[in-house]
Protein backbone atom coordinates (compact mmCIF):
# COMPACT_ATOMS: atom_id res chain seq x y z
CA UNK A 1 0.00 0.00 0.00
CA UNK A 2 2.78 2.44 0.92
CA UNK A 3 4.65 1.57 -2.26
CA UNK A 4 1.49 2.13 -4.27
CA UNK A 5 0.96 5.55 -2.74
CA UNK A 6 4.55 6.50 -3.45
CA UNK A 7 4.16 5.38 -7.06
CA UNK A 8 0.89 7.28 -7.32
CA UNK A 9 2.56 10.46 -6.07
CA UNK A 10 5.38 10.04 -8.60
CA UNK A 11 2.99 9.58 -11.52
CA UNK A 12 0.96 12.61 -10.48
CA UNK A 13 4.14 14.64 -10.17
CA UNK A 14 5.29 13.53 -13.63
CA UNK A 15 2.04 14.79 -15.18
CA UNK A 16 2.12 18.05 -13.27
CA UNK A 17 5.75 18.73 -14.22
CA UNK A 18 4.75 18.97 -17.88
CA UNK A 19 2.96 22.24 -17.08
CA UNK A 20 5.80 24.46 -18.28
CA UNK A 21 5.46 23.12 -21.85
CA UNK A 22 2.12 24.76 -22.35
CA UNK A 23 2.69 28.39 -21.46
CA UNK A 24 1.74 29.59 -24.95
CA UNK A 25 -1.35 27.39 -25.00
CA UNK A 26 -2.26 28.86 -21.63
CA UNK A 27 -1.77 32.41 -22.97
CA UNK A 28 -4.15 31.65 -25.84
CA UNK A 29 -6.79 30.21 -23.53
CA UNK A 30 -6.43 33.14 -21.16
CA UNK A 31 -6.91 35.60 -24.03
CA UNK A 32 -9.99 33.66 -25.17
CA UNK A 33 -11.38 33.73 -21.64
CA UNK A 34 -10.77 37.47 -21.18
CA UNK A 35 -12.51 38.23 -24.47
CA UNK A 36 -15.43 36.05 -23.42
CA UNK A 37 -15.74 37.72 -20.04
CA UNK A 38 -14.90 41.33 -20.91
CA UNK A 39 -16.54 41.57 -24.33
CA UNK A 40 -18.92 38.77 -25.24
CA UNK A 41 -20.43 38.28 -21.79
CA UNK A 42 -20.83 41.99 -21.07
CA UNK A 43 -22.52 42.76 -24.38
CA UNK A 44 -24.72 39.67 -24.53
CA UNK A 45 -25.88 40.27 -20.95
CA UNK A 46 -27.57 43.44 -22.23
CA UNK A 47 -29.33 41.57 -24.99
CA UNK A 48 -30.65 38.71 -22.92
CA UNK A 49 -33.68 38.73 -20.69
CA UNK A 50 -34.45 35.57 -18.78
CA UNK A 51 -36.38 34.86 -15.63
CA UNK A 52 -35.92 32.06 -13.16
CA UNK A 53 -38.55 31.04 -10.61
CA UNK A 54 -37.33 33.76 -8.22
CA UNK A 55 -37.02 36.63 -10.68
CA UNK A 56 -34.69 37.83 -13.46
CA UNK A 57 -31.35 36.07 -13.84
CA UNK A 58 -28.13 38.11 -13.82
CA UNK A 59 -26.89 36.74 -17.14
CA UNK A 60 -23.41 38.21 -16.85
CA UNK A 61 -22.62 36.36 -13.63
CA UNK A 62 -24.25 33.28 -15.07
CA UNK A 63 -22.05 33.52 -18.15
CA UNK A 64 -18.72 34.11 -16.39
CA UNK A 65 -19.01 30.73 -14.63
CA UNK A 66 -19.95 29.13 -17.97
CA UNK A 67 -16.94 30.65 -19.75
CA UNK A 68 -14.65 29.28 -17.04
CA UNK A 69 -16.17 25.81 -17.39
CA UNK A 70 -15.73 25.93 -21.18
CA UNK A 71 -12.00 26.60 -20.70
CA UNK A 72 -11.64 23.87 -18.10
CA UNK A 73 -13.47 21.42 -20.35
CA UNK A 74 -11.26 22.06 -23.36
CA UNK A 75 -8.07 21.95 -21.28
CA UNK A 76 -9.03 18.63 -19.69
CA UNK A 77 -10.11 17.02 -22.94
CA UNK A 78 -6.79 18.04 -24.49
CA UNK A 79 -5.16 15.41 -22.26
CA UNK A 80 -6.62 12.76 -24.57
CA UNK A 81 -4.41 14.09 -27.37
CA UNK A 82 -1.42 13.81 -25.10
CA UNK A 83 -2.24 10.20 -24.31
CA UNK A 84 -2.43 9.34 -28.01
CA UNK A 85 0.89 11.08 -28.62
CA UNK A 86 2.36 9.08 -25.76
CA UNK A 87 0.95 5.88 -27.25
CA UNK A 88 2.51 6.77 -30.59
CA UNK A 89 5.85 7.59 -28.97
CA UNK A 90 5.83 4.35 -26.95
CA UNK A 91 5.78 6.25 -23.68
CA UNK A 92 2.73 4.37 -22.41
CA UNK A 93 4.48 1.07 -23.16
CA UNK A 94 7.42 2.33 -21.15
CA UNK A 95 5.17 3.31 -18.26
CA UNK A 96 3.53 -0.13 -18.35
CA UNK A 97 6.96 -1.70 -18.00
CA UNK A 98 7.59 0.18 -14.76
CA UNK A 99 7.14 -1.64 -11.45
CA UNK A 100 3.81 0.13 -10.90
CA UNK A 101 0.38 -1.49 -10.80
CA UNK A 102 -1.72 -0.55 -13.82
CA UNK A 103 -4.52 0.53 -11.53
CA UNK A 104 -2.15 2.92 -9.79
CA UNK A 105 -0.89 4.13 -13.15
CA UNK A 106 -4.42 4.89 -14.41
CA UNK A 107 -5.48 6.64 -11.19
CA UNK A 108 -2.22 8.59 -11.15
CA UNK A 109 -2.59 9.73 -14.75
CA UNK A 110 -6.22 10.80 -14.21
CA UNK A 111 -5.45 12.67 -10.99
CA UNK A 112 -2.23 14.14 -12.39
CA UNK A 113 -4.12 15.27 -15.50
CA UNK A 114 -6.86 16.70 -13.30
CA UNK A 115 -4.35 18.67 -11.23
CA UNK A 116 -2.59 19.89 -14.38
CA UNK A 117 -5.87 20.99 -16.03
CA UNK A 118 -6.97 22.66 -12.82
CA UNK A 119 -3.61 24.44 -12.53
CA UNK A 120 -3.81 25.65 -16.14
CA UNK A 121 -7.23 27.07 -15.41
CA UNK A 122 -6.19 28.85 -12.18
CA UNK A 123 -5.62 32.30 -13.76
CA UNK A 124 -9.13 32.12 -15.24
CA UNK A 125 -10.57 30.90 -11.96
CA UNK A 126 -8.99 33.87 -10.19
CA UNK A 127 -10.49 36.29 -12.71
CA UNK A 128 -13.88 34.62 -12.25
CA UNK A 129 -13.61 34.77 -8.45
CA UNK A 130 -12.86 38.51 -8.60
CA UNK A 131 -15.53 39.32 -11.21
CA UNK A 132 -18.19 37.30 -9.40
CA UNK A 133 -17.22 38.48 -5.93
CA UNK A 134 -17.18 34.96 -4.47
CA UNK A 135 -18.37 35.43 -0.87
CA UNK A 136 -15.62 33.72 1.16
CA UNK A 137 -12.41 31.67 1.16
CA UNK A 138 -14.26 28.41 1.97
CA UNK A 139 -16.36 29.03 -1.15
CA UNK A 140 -13.18 29.44 -3.20
CA UNK A 141 -11.76 26.22 -1.73
CA UNK A 142 -15.01 24.41 -2.52
CA UNK A 143 -14.86 25.77 -6.08
CA UNK A 144 -11.30 24.48 -6.42
CA UNK A 145 -12.21 21.01 -5.10
CA UNK A 146 -15.21 20.71 -7.42
CA UNK A 147 -13.18 21.92 -10.38
CA UNK A 148 -10.35 19.50 -9.67
CA UNK A 149 -12.76 16.58 -9.21
CA UNK A 150 -14.56 17.29 -12.47
CA UNK A 151 -11.31 17.92 -14.37
CA UNK A 152 -10.04 14.51 -13.18
CA UNK A 153 -13.25 12.92 -14.45
CA UNK A 154 -12.86 14.60 -17.82
CA UNK A 155 -9.24 13.49 -18.04
CA UNK A 156 -10.41 9.95 -17.23
CA UNK A 157 -12.89 10.14 -20.13
CA UNK A 158 -10.25 11.58 -22.47
CA UNK A 159 -7.83 8.79 -21.44
CA UNK A 160 -10.46 6.10 -21.93
CA UNK A 161 -11.42 7.37 -25.37
CA UNK A 162 -7.77 7.71 -26.38
CA UNK A 163 -6.95 4.17 -25.20
CA UNK A 164 -10.07 2.81 -26.87
CA UNK A 165 -9.53 4.49 -30.25
CA UNK A 166 -5.71 4.39 -30.33
CA UNK A 167 -5.78 6.68 -33.34
CA UNK A 168 -4.79 10.31 -33.35
CA UNK A 169 -7.03 11.15 -36.33
CA UNK A 170 -10.14 9.44 -34.95
CA UNK A 171 -9.57 10.97 -31.54
CA UNK A 172 -9.12 14.43 -33.01
CA UNK A 173 -12.40 14.17 -34.89
CA UNK A 174 -14.29 12.76 -31.92
CA UNK A 175 -12.87 15.33 -29.53
CA UNK A 176 -13.51 18.22 -31.90
CA UNK A 177 -17.11 17.15 -32.39
CA UNK A 178 -17.77 16.36 -28.74
CA UNK A 179 -16.14 19.61 -27.60
CA UNK A 180 -18.58 21.58 -29.76
CA UNK A 181 -21.64 19.52 -28.89
CA UNK A 182 -21.10 18.87 -25.18
CA UNK A 183 -20.43 22.54 -24.48
CA UNK A 184 -23.43 23.80 -26.42
CA UNK A 185 -25.77 21.05 -25.22
CA UNK A 186 -25.15 21.97 -21.61
CA UNK A 187 -26.01 24.82 -19.29
CA UNK A 188 -22.70 26.59 -19.94
CA UNK A 189 -24.25 29.37 -22.05
CA UNK A 190 -27.91 29.24 -21.02
CA UNK A 191 -29.86 28.09 -17.97
CA UNK A 192 -31.81 24.86 -18.23
CA UNK A 193 -35.13 26.78 -18.33
CA UNK A 194 -34.01 28.31 -21.65
CA UNK A 195 -33.75 24.82 -23.14
CA UNK A 196 -37.28 23.70 -22.28
CA UNK A 197 -38.81 24.77 -25.66
CA UNK A 198 -36.55 22.27 -27.48
CA UNK A 199 -37.18 18.97 -25.74
CA UNK A 200 -34.26 17.03 -27.18
CA UNK A 201 -31.75 19.72 -26.18
CA UNK A 202 -33.37 19.96 -22.75
CA UNK A 203 -33.02 16.25 -21.97
CA UNK A 204 -29.50 16.05 -23.38
CA UNK A 205 -28.45 19.03 -21.24
CA UNK A 206 -30.12 17.39 -18.22
CA UNK A 207 -27.93 14.29 -18.45
CA UNK A 208 -24.79 16.07 -19.62
CA UNK A 209 -22.20 15.98 -16.78
CA UNK A 210 -20.94 19.40 -17.93
CA UNK A 211 -24.33 20.91 -16.95
CA UNK A 212 -24.10 19.39 -13.48
CA UNK A 213 -20.53 20.63 -13.01
CA UNK A 214 -21.14 24.18 -14.21
CA UNK A 215 -24.34 24.55 -12.19
CA UNK A 216 -22.57 23.23 -9.09
CA UNK A 217 -19.93 25.92 -9.58
CA UNK A 218 -22.72 28.49 -9.85
CA UNK A 219 -24.32 27.30 -6.62
CA UNK A 220 -20.98 27.68 -4.86
CA UNK A 221 -19.79 30.92 -6.50
CA UNK A 222 -22.99 32.91 -6.82
CA UNK A 223 -25.61 31.11 -4.71
CA UNK A 224 -28.00 34.07 -4.75
CA UNK A 225 -28.09 33.99 -8.57
CA UNK A 226 -28.24 30.21 -8.93
CA UNK A 227 -31.24 29.27 -6.87
CA UNK A 228 -34.01 27.67 -8.88
CA UNK A 229 -32.17 27.69 -12.22
CA UNK A 230 -29.83 24.74 -11.85
CA UNK A 231 -30.15 21.49 -13.71
CA UNK A 232 -30.89 19.65 -10.48
CA UNK A 233 -30.68 19.80 -6.68
CA UNK A 234 -27.13 20.76 -5.44
CA UNK A 235 -26.68 17.44 -3.62
CA UNK A 236 -27.77 15.48 -6.68
CA UNK A 237 -25.39 17.50 -8.87
CA UNK A 238 -22.48 16.93 -6.48
CA UNK A 239 -23.23 13.19 -6.44
CA UNK A 240 -23.45 13.23 -10.24
CA UNK A 241 -19.99 14.78 -10.54
CA UNK A 242 -18.53 12.33 -7.99
CA UNK A 243 -20.15 9.41 -9.83
CA UNK A 244 -18.96 10.70 -13.19
CA UNK A 245 -15.39 11.07 -11.97
CA UNK A 246 -15.35 7.65 -10.34
CA UNK A 247 -16.88 5.97 -13.39
CA UNK A 248 -14.49 7.65 -15.82
CA UNK A 249 -11.41 6.70 -13.77
CA UNK A 250 -12.71 3.11 -13.47
CA UNK A 251 -13.20 3.05 -17.24
CA UNK A 252 -9.63 4.27 -17.72
CA UNK A 253 -8.33 1.58 -15.33
CA UNK A 254 -10.27 -1.14 -17.14
CA UNK A 255 -9.04 -0.03 -20.54
CA UNK A 256 -5.48 0.33 -19.36
CA UNK A 257 -5.58 -3.15 -17.83
CA UNK A 258 -7.26 -4.94 -20.71
CA UNK A 259 -6.63 -3.13 -23.94
CA UNK A 260 -3.16 -1.75 -23.82
CA UNK A 261 -1.34 -4.91 -24.82
CA UNK A 262 -0.29 -5.12 -28.42
CA UNK A 263 1.06 -1.62 -28.64
CA UNK A 264 -0.14 1.31 -30.62
CA UNK A 265 -2.03 0.81 -33.85
CA UNK A 266 -2.10 -2.99 -33.86
Amino acid sequence: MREDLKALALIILWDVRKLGRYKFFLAMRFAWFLLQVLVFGLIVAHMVSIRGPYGPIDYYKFYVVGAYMAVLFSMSIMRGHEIVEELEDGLIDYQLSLPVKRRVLAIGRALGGGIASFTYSLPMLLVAVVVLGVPSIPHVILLAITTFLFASGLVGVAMSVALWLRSGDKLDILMGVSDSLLVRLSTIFYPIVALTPIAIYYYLAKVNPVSHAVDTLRVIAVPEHASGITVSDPLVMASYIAGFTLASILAAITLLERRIEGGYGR
Partner: protein
Amino acid sequence: MLGAQTLMVAYRDLQRFWKYKWWLAGLITMNLADLFIFALVFRGIVRRDVVPDYFYFLAPGIASIAAFAAAFTIGREVMMELRRGFHHYLLSLPISRIDLVVGRILGGVVRGVVYQMPFIALLVILTGVLGPALALALIVTIMVSASMSSLSIALSTAVKSLEMQATIRSITYFAIFFLSNVFYPENVLKTRLPEPVYTMIVNNPISIATSIYRAIFTPGIVNDTHQVEVLLAKLTLWTITLVVVGAILYDRNLKN
Protein backbone atom coordinates in the same frame (compact mmCIF):
# COMPACT_ATOMS: atom_id res chain seq x y z
CA MET B 1 -0.62 37.61 -63.06
CA LEU B 2 -2.99 34.69 -62.46
CA GLY B 3 -1.08 32.15 -64.49
CA ALA B 4 -1.25 28.39 -64.48
CA GLN B 5 1.54 28.25 -61.91
CA THR B 6 -0.36 30.49 -59.51
CA LEU B 7 -3.35 28.21 -59.85
CA MET B 8 -1.16 25.14 -59.25
CA VAL B 9 0.09 26.63 -55.99
CA ALA B 10 -3.48 27.44 -54.94
CA TYR B 11 -4.66 23.96 -55.94
CA ARG B 12 -1.92 22.38 -53.83
CA ASP B 13 -3.09 24.44 -50.87
CA LEU B 14 -6.67 23.32 -51.42
CA GLN B 15 -5.60 19.66 -51.56
CA ARG B 16 -3.67 20.09 -48.32
CA PHE B 17 -6.73 21.64 -46.69
CA TRP B 18 -8.51 18.26 -46.63
CA LYS B 19 -5.61 16.83 -44.66
CA TYR B 20 -6.88 18.53 -41.51
CA LYS B 21 -9.77 16.13 -41.00
CA TRP B 22 -9.95 16.70 -37.26
CA TRP B 23 -9.87 20.43 -37.60
CA LEU B 24 -12.52 20.40 -40.33
CA ALA B 25 -14.78 18.06 -38.36
CA GLY B 26 -14.46 20.26 -35.29
CA LEU B 27 -15.03 23.46 -37.27
CA ILE B 28 -18.05 22.15 -39.18
CA THR B 29 -19.59 20.86 -35.95
CA MET B 30 -18.85 24.12 -34.16
CA ASN B 31 -20.36 26.24 -36.93
CA LEU B 32 -23.46 24.05 -37.18
CA ALA B 33 -23.80 23.79 -33.39
CA ASP B 34 -23.52 27.58 -33.13
CA LEU B 35 -26.40 27.89 -35.56
CA PHE B 36 -28.68 24.97 -34.71
CA ILE B 37 -28.11 24.82 -30.96
CA PHE B 38 -26.68 28.11 -29.68
CA ALA B 39 -28.69 30.43 -31.95
CA LEU B 40 -31.92 28.43 -31.61
CA VAL B 41 -31.72 28.47 -27.81
CA PHE B 42 -30.65 32.11 -27.74
CA ARG B 43 -33.61 33.00 -29.94
CA GLY B 44 -35.75 32.26 -26.92
CA ILE B 45 -33.83 34.44 -24.46
CA VAL B 46 -32.62 37.41 -26.52
CA ARG B 47 -34.97 40.38 -26.16
CA ARG B 48 -37.18 40.73 -29.23
CA ASP B 49 -36.78 44.49 -29.22
CA VAL B 50 -33.01 44.00 -29.61
CA VAL B 51 -33.02 41.17 -32.15
CA PRO B 52 -36.41 39.93 -33.40
CA ASP B 53 -35.05 36.55 -34.46
CA TYR B 54 -31.57 35.62 -33.25
CA PHE B 55 -31.38 32.51 -35.45
CA TYR B 56 -31.72 34.52 -38.66
CA PHE B 57 -29.51 37.22 -37.19
CA LEU B 58 -26.64 34.83 -36.50
CA ALA B 59 -26.86 32.73 -39.68
CA PRO B 60 -25.09 35.26 -42.00
CA GLY B 61 -22.44 35.79 -39.32
CA ILE B 62 -21.72 32.07 -39.26
CA ALA B 63 -21.12 32.22 -43.03
CA SER B 64 -18.58 35.03 -42.46
CA ILE B 65 -16.86 33.11 -39.70
CA ALA B 66 -16.70 30.00 -41.90
CA ALA B 67 -14.84 31.84 -44.69
CA PHE B 68 -12.61 33.60 -42.17
CA ALA B 69 -11.62 30.44 -40.29
CA ALA B 70 -10.91 28.42 -43.44
CA ALA B 71 -8.90 31.19 -45.12
CA PHE B 72 -6.96 31.82 -41.92
CA THR B 73 -5.55 28.25 -41.93
CA ILE B 74 -3.10 29.11 -44.70
CA GLY B 75 -0.99 31.12 -42.26
CA ARG B 76 -0.29 28.07 -40.14
CA GLU B 77 1.13 26.21 -43.11
CA VAL B 78 3.26 29.13 -44.17
CA MET B 79 4.53 29.31 -40.61
CA MET B 80 5.45 25.60 -40.55
CA GLU B 81 7.09 25.78 -43.98
CA LEU B 82 9.26 28.72 -42.98
CA ARG B 83 10.24 26.96 -39.78
CA ARG B 84 11.13 23.70 -41.49
CA GLY B 85 12.86 25.41 -44.40
CA PHE B 86 10.35 23.91 -46.83
CA HIS B 87 10.14 27.28 -48.57
CA HIS B 88 13.62 26.62 -49.99
CA TYR B 89 12.13 23.68 -51.86
CA LEU B 90 9.22 25.82 -53.04
CA LEU B 91 11.67 28.47 -54.26
CA SER B 92 13.64 25.83 -56.18
CA LEU B 93 10.58 24.94 -58.25
CA PRO B 94 10.24 26.44 -61.73
CA ILE B 95 7.70 28.95 -60.42
CA SER B 96 8.29 32.67 -60.23
CA ARG B 97 8.27 34.17 -56.75
CA ILE B 98 5.30 36.35 -57.57
CA ASP B 99 3.36 33.24 -58.67
CA LEU B 100 4.24 31.58 -55.40
CA VAL B 101 3.23 34.57 -53.27
CA VAL B 102 -0.02 35.20 -55.13
CA GLY B 103 -0.71 31.46 -55.24
CA ARG B 104 -0.47 31.17 -51.46
CA ILE B 105 -2.91 34.03 -50.92
CA LEU B 106 -5.17 32.55 -53.55
CA GLY B 107 -4.91 29.19 -51.77
CA GLY B 108 -6.42 30.81 -48.69
CA VAL B 109 -9.15 32.37 -50.83
CA VAL B 110 -10.04 29.02 -52.39
CA ARG B 111 -10.18 27.40 -48.94
CA GLY B 112 -12.48 30.16 -47.68
CA VAL B 113 -14.78 29.96 -50.71
CA VAL B 114 -14.96 26.15 -50.83
CA TYR B 115 -15.53 25.74 -47.10
CA GLN B 116 -18.11 28.51 -46.96
CA MET B 117 -20.22 27.32 -49.92
CA PRO B 118 -22.37 24.86 -47.92
CA PHE B 119 -23.12 27.64 -45.43
CA ILE B 120 -24.19 29.97 -48.23
CA ALA B 121 -26.33 27.11 -49.58
CA LEU B 122 -27.85 26.76 -46.11
CA LEU B 123 -28.60 30.50 -46.08
CA VAL B 124 -30.29 30.16 -49.47
CA ILE B 125 -32.43 27.29 -48.15
CA LEU B 126 -33.30 29.20 -44.96
CA THR B 127 -34.09 32.52 -46.62
CA GLY B 128 -35.04 31.58 -50.18
CA VAL B 129 -32.79 34.31 -51.58
CA LEU B 130 -31.60 33.55 -55.11
CA GLY B 131 -30.49 35.49 -58.16
CA PRO B 132 -27.85 38.18 -58.71
CA ALA B 133 -27.53 38.77 -54.95
CA LEU B 134 -25.64 35.48 -54.77
CA ALA B 135 -22.97 36.90 -57.08
CA LEU B 136 -22.52 39.75 -54.62
CA ALA B 137 -22.25 37.21 -51.79
CA LEU B 138 -19.53 35.39 -53.74
CA ILE B 139 -17.60 38.63 -54.30
CA VAL B 140 -17.79 39.36 -50.57
CA THR B 141 -16.61 35.85 -49.76
CA ILE B 142 -13.64 36.21 -52.11
CA MET B 143 -12.70 39.56 -50.58
CA VAL B 144 -13.07 38.48 -46.96
CA SER B 145 -11.13 35.27 -47.66
CA ALA B 146 -8.37 37.19 -49.46
CA SER B 147 -8.03 39.69 -46.61
CA MET B 148 -7.99 37.01 -43.90
CA SER B 149 -5.66 34.74 -45.87
CA SER B 150 -3.23 37.66 -46.31
CA LEU B 151 -3.54 38.72 -42.68
CA SER B 152 -2.77 35.21 -41.52
CA ILE B 153 0.26 34.97 -43.85
CA ALA B 154 1.46 38.37 -42.62
CA LEU B 155 1.14 37.27 -38.98
CA SER B 156 2.94 34.03 -39.69
CA THR B 157 5.96 35.88 -40.93
CA ALA B 158 5.96 38.49 -38.18
CA VAL B 159 8.12 36.79 -35.52
CA LYS B 160 10.60 33.92 -35.54
CA SER B 161 9.39 31.88 -32.56
CA LEU B 162 6.86 29.24 -33.60
CA GLU B 163 5.05 29.34 -30.27
CA MET B 164 4.88 33.12 -30.31
CA GLN B 165 3.51 33.07 -33.85
CA ALA B 166 0.85 30.54 -32.90
CA THR B 167 -0.10 32.67 -29.91
CA ILE B 168 -0.31 35.87 -31.96
CA ARG B 169 -2.38 34.12 -34.61
CA SER B 170 -4.78 32.67 -32.06
CA ILE B 171 -5.21 35.94 -30.19
CA THR B 172 -5.82 37.78 -33.48
CA TYR B 173 -8.32 35.11 -34.47
CA PHE B 174 -10.22 35.42 -31.17
CA ALA B 175 -10.09 39.22 -31.30
CA ILE B 176 -11.53 39.34 -34.84
CA PHE B 177 -14.10 36.71 -33.88
CA PHE B 178 -15.43 38.36 -30.73
CA LEU B 179 -14.77 42.00 -31.66
CA SER B 180 -17.13 41.83 -34.61
CA ASN B 181 -20.86 42.23 -35.16
CA VAL B 182 -21.40 38.50 -35.73
CA PHE B 183 -22.98 37.87 -32.33
CA TYR B 184 -24.37 41.29 -31.43
CA PRO B 185 -26.24 44.02 -33.31
CA GLU B 186 -24.44 47.29 -33.86
CA ASN B 187 -26.99 49.39 -31.95
CA VAL B 188 -26.18 47.41 -28.80
CA LEU B 189 -22.44 47.81 -29.43
CA LYS B 190 -22.93 51.54 -29.90
CA THR B 191 -24.66 51.99 -26.55
CA ARG B 192 -22.37 49.67 -24.59
CA LEU B 193 -18.87 50.42 -25.87
CA PRO B 194 -16.70 53.53 -26.13
CA GLU B 195 -16.91 55.21 -29.56
CA PRO B 196 -13.38 54.20 -30.73
CA VAL B 197 -13.97 50.54 -29.84
CA TYR B 198 -17.36 50.61 -31.56
CA THR B 199 -15.82 52.16 -34.69
CA MET B 200 -13.08 49.54 -34.68
CA ILE B 201 -15.58 46.69 -34.36
CA VAL B 202 -17.96 47.80 -37.10
CA ASN B 203 -15.08 48.40 -39.49
CA ASN B 204 -13.51 45.00 -38.93
CA PRO B 205 -13.58 43.06 -42.25
CA ILE B 206 -15.66 40.28 -40.69
CA SER B 207 -18.23 42.81 -39.46
CA ILE B 208 -18.37 44.45 -42.88
CA ALA B 209 -18.82 41.07 -44.61
CA THR B 210 -21.49 40.06 -42.08
CA SER B 211 -23.38 43.31 -42.64
CA ILE B 212 -23.39 42.70 -46.39
CA TYR B 213 -24.53 39.08 -45.96
CA ARG B 214 -27.30 40.33 -43.67
CA ALA B 215 -28.31 42.92 -46.26
CA ILE B 216 -28.51 40.13 -48.85
CA PHE B 217 -30.07 37.28 -46.90
CA THR B 218 -31.84 38.72 -43.87
CA PRO B 219 -32.57 42.40 -44.60
CA GLY B 220 -34.45 44.17 -41.83
CA ILE B 221 -33.48 41.64 -39.15
CA VAL B 222 -31.92 44.53 -37.21
CA ASN B 223 -31.99 48.29 -37.67
CA ASP B 224 -28.41 48.63 -38.85
CA THR B 225 -28.63 51.22 -41.60
CA HIS B 226 -25.70 50.56 -43.88
CA GLN B 227 -25.31 51.27 -47.54
CA VAL B 228 -24.03 48.15 -49.26
CA GLU B 229 -21.93 50.28 -51.65
CA VAL B 230 -20.11 51.91 -48.72
CA LEU B 231 -19.56 48.53 -47.07
CA LEU B 232 -18.20 47.11 -50.31
CA ALA B 233 -15.83 50.05 -50.68
CA LYS B 234 -14.55 49.53 -47.13
CA LEU B 235 -14.08 45.80 -47.69
CA THR B 236 -12.26 46.46 -50.96
CA LEU B 237 -9.92 48.83 -49.16
CA TRP B 238 -9.25 46.25 -46.44
CA THR B 239 -8.65 43.54 -49.04
CA ILE B 240 -6.19 45.59 -51.09
CA THR B 241 -4.29 46.73 -48.00
CA LEU B 242 -4.04 43.31 -46.40
CA VAL B 243 -3.18 41.51 -49.65
CA VAL B 244 -0.37 43.98 -50.34
CA VAL B 245 0.97 43.78 -46.77
CA GLY B 246 0.69 39.97 -46.69
CA ALA B 247 2.41 39.61 -50.06
CA ILE B 248 5.26 41.97 -49.14
CA LEU B 249 5.90 40.25 -45.80
CA TYR B 250 5.76 36.76 -47.27
CA ASP B 251 8.04 37.78 -50.12
CA ARG B 252 10.49 39.33 -47.65
CA ASN B 253 10.58 36.10 -45.65
CA LEU B 254 11.13 34.03 -48.76
CA LYS B 255 14.12 36.19 -49.63
CA ASN B 256 15.62 35.82 -46.14
